């Protein structure tokens, strides 16, 4: 049979399975969302202060990012297996691994976002009488946000993908659909994971664009005739 037809039929069966057996898919679907969401939320709570810290104390940057980089190189399956004796066959194992992986991308980009701010802007802010919290909240955070969001977006995509593997260590994610040798279920699982990833990706891209809108606006009196430059935000990692 024509491989294209096979390919088409494979996913067609997947879609049919999702719509026919939604009551079977949905627990995995929402569990997947929940575990990814919890992991990312906790990851951000850790990564933000850590990123802020290494952007303030530059001597910590290399050791912290180096350590996180090493953690990131541990293969996910091995990492999960390593933690089963500690956390057992429960979603916790998966969540801990997802949080750890997300750190690498989040911490680096959060620090990058803060470091990229022109020191003159910060001097002006302090010189005008803003206290530390005001400088952070009104100036640093909004200016670092686009780069931070880029890091969070990539961490989110990785998390959604790796969460699948958690199905083998006690997390009822969409990976459960891959565990039987059933092409319909496997196709349905792939479709759901890709769908979640695409929606999340698009969401964060829109957020990044909104957060950096001030950079792209051109003068009303376009004397330069410059076309709007659609600058891609530097990601600085995988």
């Amino acid at each position, binding site marked *: 049979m024509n491989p294209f037809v096979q390919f088409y039929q494979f996913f067609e069966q997947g879609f049919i399975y999702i719509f026919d057996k939604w009551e079977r898919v949905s627990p995995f679907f929402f569990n997947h969302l929940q575990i990814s969401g919890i992991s990312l939320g906790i990851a951000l709570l850790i990564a933000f202060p850590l990123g802020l810290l290494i952007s303030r104390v530059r001597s910590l940057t290399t050791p912290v990012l180096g350590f996180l980089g090493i953690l990131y190189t541990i293969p996910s399956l091995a990492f999960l297996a390593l933690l089963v004796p500690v956390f057992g066959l429960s979603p916790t194992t998966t969540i801990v691994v997802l949080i750890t992986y997300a750190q690498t991308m989040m911490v680096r980009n959060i620090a990058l976002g803060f470091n990229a701010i*022109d020191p*003159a*802007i*910060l*001097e*002006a*802010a*302090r*010189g*005008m*009488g*803003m*206290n530390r919290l*005001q400088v952070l909240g*009104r*100036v640093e955070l*909004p*200016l670092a946000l686009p780069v931070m969001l880029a890091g969070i977006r990539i961490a989110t995509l990785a998390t959604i993908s790796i969460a699948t593997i958690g199905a083998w260590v006690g997390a009822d994610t969409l990976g459960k659909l891959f565990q039987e040798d059933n092409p319909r279920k496997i196709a349905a699982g792939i479709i759901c994971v890709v769908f979640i990833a695409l929606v999340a990706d698009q969401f964060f891209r829109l957020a990044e664009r909104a957060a950096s809108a*001030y*950079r792209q*606006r*051109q*003068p*009303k*009196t376009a004397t330069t005739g410059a076309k709007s430059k659609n600058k891609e935000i530097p990601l600085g990692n995988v």
Partner: protein
Amino acid sequence: MQKAIVFENITKDYSGTGRAAVHNVNLEVLEGHLVVLLGPSGCGKTTLMKMVNRLIDPTEGRILVGGTDIRELKVTELRRRIGYVIQQVGLFPHMRVDKNIGVVPHMLGWDKERIRQRSDELLDLVGLPPDDFRERYPAQLSGGQQQRVGLARALAADPAIMLMDEPFAAIDNITRTRLQDELLRVQQTIRKTILFVTHDVEEAIKLADEIVIMRDGQVVQYDTPLRILSQPANEFVRELTGAGDVMRLLSLQSAATIMSPSGEGVSGSNSSHKILPTTNLRDALGLIMSQGLDQLQVVDEEDRPVGLITLTAIRNLAGKTAGVESK
């Protein structure tokens, strides 16, 4: 006249450098004066200025602002009362022009309407039509426009004191001249006490009521531009300011200083060669030379003759100072 800023025995010693960045400086800045801190880079002028809003704290000595020791105030309160303009402008790129201007008023708790009015008023003052500019982002402004907004932002809460750290150094010549002229014009109306740091002698002479010449962390001379040029304290000042430059000296003196009362006989003799008493002598000399005259009539605003400037009088004045120069 009130003393707006007083430096008492100010020393800043960065540990480990051996030499103090600022060494035992005593200085009094009068209210409403524009005082320029002038000197080569590394002379301590910027350090001295940043101690006023406590971006840098002195190792020894104290600074009084409006009679109060600045350490007795909360540092954020102090800074909100002092306008601050820097070379790199430092506008907040994510805020519109009007929001940038409104930052300090907002912190001081002004209501929205008052902030809006103030921001429009200031945009007018710095020569940017509010309707055209208030909604722009800094990225949509030229360098000169950005620094105008920077100036407006520093003026927003009507501070009595302004600190300006080489505000025009990164701007092209033509725009810089225009901004200097506008600063003088604005200063005519607002009469702030301004500490202005620069390494540009021309700028210092043009703007200053008084100039503080600094070298190696110490004040070498504190005087009016005219006296600094005509009576430099030492060889360093003479070289730094080009004190021997006769034209520069003439540019600092107005026609009124050497005008002789007009004889009725000459009135109306040549209608095109009249100057106001406020015209500087460099321009007067330029007119005399280019027109091949030997005297100019000085008239008041209503075109009534008030005196006469002769080439001889200018030559005598220049000779007098030049005589001091060449010994």
